[in-house]
């Protein structure tokens, strides 16, 4: 069925003989979205704030303290963090009452725990985007997809050096053509919905809170 | 493609007036006011007596064959290279923007395109070609303006009405809520979908009434007839007038004499 469907559809499309004239895309308008580093940081923070995201700018030596303080504030006991995350050791040694663990088994083995008993996840980011206040997250074997989705609090570590003006700038500078990772995400604030009479509610199906640590000196 | 910038001609000695069938039958004083305003600006107005209708009613009903037949007879009426001014945004829009499409691929395509390029909305023409200066001779009054969708979106001349009214010192211009929303006229739409059209017109009349204006003006006779008709049926004290009639009456130097 599907192979004859394929042929039918493609040959029907190719039946069209005339090709309407159209302008070639002019991408210049995308390049007007550029900010200097300090303006970009300011915009990133403001844009995250506008979607209920919380951004804390810290110097690298103060990062562990700041993250711990955020975890305590949230009352988190069980926190996911990748074993390779540089921050991990500093956190483990300093927080006795928090259980830090890696996402180290297939989801099927512990799905219910992941969804119901995990309070927070700390992940790295590929980049940050000033224009829209977005995080670019590329899930990996150590930081799988559900880390940024299942726990109610997502803490993201973003080096200032990885801040770009816009997604378009990132895509063009890093040349995102051709094969892509399994999953790539732009994340802007915690999950939300306005499906009930346009009342904005945070914490729809994903995290209820997102804190970004924007780190100088990494 | 984005809207091209409008390039206005220099002020001419003569213009043609295309009166439109609604003005002809229902609001001739608006057409005459347009003539008076143009003549006061030193422009001679030629009114070809053989004009009938731009073809829009048929065109928007999907009857392009009939629209083309009627429009074709209008193509012959403006032989000289003078501007053609129209006291209605929708008829101006029909001639300026739809004629080229209507005649595309026919033997009249070139003639239609040439005519289309010199069609102007009369109010816009007064502002941007004549650069008219009005002196207000009337009593203080509060006015709301309903700019037709054709003037606003098809012709892109929504600024001209307010620009003219702001020249009148004793006129306070107030803006109704949802100023850019359609009044519900839409030609045959008002008959085919009378209930939707009626709901839109009723809302527009309510918005105009809420401004507390003494009267409302419109740049298009269709909108005017629609809104005035609703106001009258609902027995609301909301008189309506064509923008051009109002401008002429307000700016005559010795109107009391």
């Amino acid at each position: 069925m599907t192979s004859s469907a394929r042929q039918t559809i493609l040959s029907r499309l190719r039946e069209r003989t005339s090709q309407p004239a159209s302008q070639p895309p002019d991408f210049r308008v995308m390049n007007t979205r550029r900010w200097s580093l300090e303006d970009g940081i300011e915009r990133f923070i403001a844009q995250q704030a506008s979607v209920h995201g919380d951004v804390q700018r810290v110097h690298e030596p103060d990062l562990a303290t700041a993250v711990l303080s955020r975890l305590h504030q949230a009352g988190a006991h069980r926190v996911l963090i990748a074993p390779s995350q540089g921050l991990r050791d500093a956190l483990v040694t300093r927080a006795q009452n928090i259980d830090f663990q890696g996402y180290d088994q297939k989801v099927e083995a512990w799905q219910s725990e992941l969804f119901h008993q995990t309070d927070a996840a700390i992940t790295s980011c590929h980049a940050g985007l000033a224009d829209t206040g977005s995080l670019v997250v590329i899930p990996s074997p150590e930081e799988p997809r559900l880390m940024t989705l299942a726990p109610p609090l997502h803490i993201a570590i973003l080096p200032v050096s990885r801040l770009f003006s816009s997604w378009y700038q990132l895509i063009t500078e890093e040349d995102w053509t051709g094969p892509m990772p399994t999953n790539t995400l732009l994340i802007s604030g915690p999950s939300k919905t306005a499906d009930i009479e346009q009342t904005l509610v945070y914490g729809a199906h994903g995290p209820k809170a997102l804190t970004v640590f924007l780190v100088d000196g990494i | 493609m984005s809207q091209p910038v409008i390039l206005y001609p220099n002020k001419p000695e003569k213009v043609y007036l295309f009166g439109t069938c609604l003005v002809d039958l229902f609001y001739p004083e608006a057409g005459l006011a347009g003539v008076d305003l143009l003549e006061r600006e030193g422009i001679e107005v030629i009114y070809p007596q053989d004009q009938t209708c731009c073809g829009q009613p048929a065109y928007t009903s999907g009857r392009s064959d009939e629209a083309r037949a009627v429009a074709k007879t209008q193509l012959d009426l403006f032989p000289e290279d003078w501007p053609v001014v129209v006291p209605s945004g929708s008829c101006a829009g029909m001639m300026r923007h739809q004629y080229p499409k209507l005649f595309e691929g026919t033997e009249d395509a070139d003639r239609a395109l040439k005519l289309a390029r010199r069609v102007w909305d009369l109010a816009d023409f007064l502002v941007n070609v004549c650069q008219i200066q009005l002196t207000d001779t009337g009593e203080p009054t509060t006015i709301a303006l309903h700019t037709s969708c054709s003037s606003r979106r098809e012709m892109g001349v929504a600024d001209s009405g307010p620009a003219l009214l702001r020249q009148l010192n004793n006129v306070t211009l107030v803006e109704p809520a949802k100023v850019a929303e359609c009044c519900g006229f839409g030609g045959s739409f008002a008959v085919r979908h009378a209930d939707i059209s009626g709901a839109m017109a009723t809302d527009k009349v309510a918005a105009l009434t809420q401004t507390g204006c003494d009267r409302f003006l419109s740049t298009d006779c269709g909108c005017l007839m629609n809104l005035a008709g609703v106001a009258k049926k609902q027995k609301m004290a909301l008189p309506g007038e064509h923008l051009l009639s109002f401008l002429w009456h307000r700016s005559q130097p010795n109107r009391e004499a």
Partner: protein
Amino acid sequence: MPQTLQQSHNSAINFQPQVKSALANTQLRGNFDRAMTGLMHKRTMAFADWDLEALRDLGQAIRQQSLRQLPDLLEQLERQCQANGIQVHWARDGDEACQVVTEICQQRQAKTVIKGKSMVTEEMELNAHLEQRGYTVLESDLGEYIVQMAKETPSHIIMPAIHKNTAEIAELMHTMTGVEQREDAHYLTDQARQQLREKFMQADVGISGVNFAVADSGTLCLVENEGNGRLTTTTPPCHIAVTGIEKVVPSLTDVAPLLSLLTRSATGQSITTYVNMISRPRQPDEKDGPEAVHLVLVDNGRSDIYQDEELAETLQCIRCGACMNHCPVYTRIGGHAYGTTYPGPIGQVLMPQLLGLEQTPDFASASSLCGSCGEVCPVRIPLPSLLLRLRREAVDGDRTRASTVPGHGSKRSNLESLIWAVWRLVHRRPGLYRLTTRLASQLRALSPKRLGGWTRYRSAPKLAKTTLHSAMNNRSKRQQP
């Protein structure tokens, strides 16, 4: 020949009575008026710091370029997806697409299916199809969840439950799920979150739509706020993405501007919470994500639309809903009155092409042609011109052009043809026109007080005492004695 597709839940034929009852429902009109007014304002604010016209030019150019290369891009997309391990299926119409999905579910011995928001699956009535075959199907987008509970269809393509207010939803959720009847969007959302979390974990298959399919990387882009789309495409062991064939673009570079247009036009957001780019199933070293990913490419009338250069502009649509948010007709009657999957201006243009003009007899005419839809469309689909084209097709009104729309000529009536023949006769003969109009003005006392639908809401217009023709004639006589 283009085939007319059947849609069992299509009730566009009953447009007029549906409009009457919608207009009489003051609650409904209030809900839509408030929502659409807010959305229009948010959109304006969201584009305030952009060169919007340049961005719309770009969006239009990208969509037109993509459509020009459509068959090639589809083949490239298929190749890249397959190279990535995504299985690609093709379906000529909605039924075939439903069968493809059913077969995948059978192979997986699935029992429960969870869905993210997808308009194309509404178009093919996938839920009904699967339920008839014994599958449990659950919508996970909050708006869709509410609509499904109410046994309704979405009334807006972006905000499916926009026709309901909080009180109505509280009562519905109380009745259907037993939660407290509290008029509190926060409480209700949290209850739905808890109810659905269990379902995500139990589902055997997740079905989603696609916002943009990227040909050069084989990537499926999904745009959403709630996280339900990510859960749908991550938690179940099998993900089936269903998309219309027109959604393909050359590369991610093209997605960036379209995304900027989409979210701002739709809800006034500079971006949604999530942009989810899926390029392959779970890899051996990965710990979550579906082990199988399928892409179903659905034609369902699109390749017929594609044949006509003018009408093919319909396929540029990125499904933002801005045309309905700004439509004075949609705002007053709401989405359900249309009786089709897609309401509002884009629905009025698309549905007659999919279902046939005879199935949608009022769609082309139910517009004042005010131009708001065309003015806001992020990819510059000339919606008013397309409505006019469909009007011509419906009455077979342009004998100089070829016609392609199913149901062509179905609205042509002898009575109307006669009226237009008389109109044409009078307006082509200036002498006859002047005579008739002068006569009409002189006999204006006799003009009718009732004029059908017009005078239901308005007083009858009054002819002037004299015509402009006569007045101008007298004037020139005065000036040239």
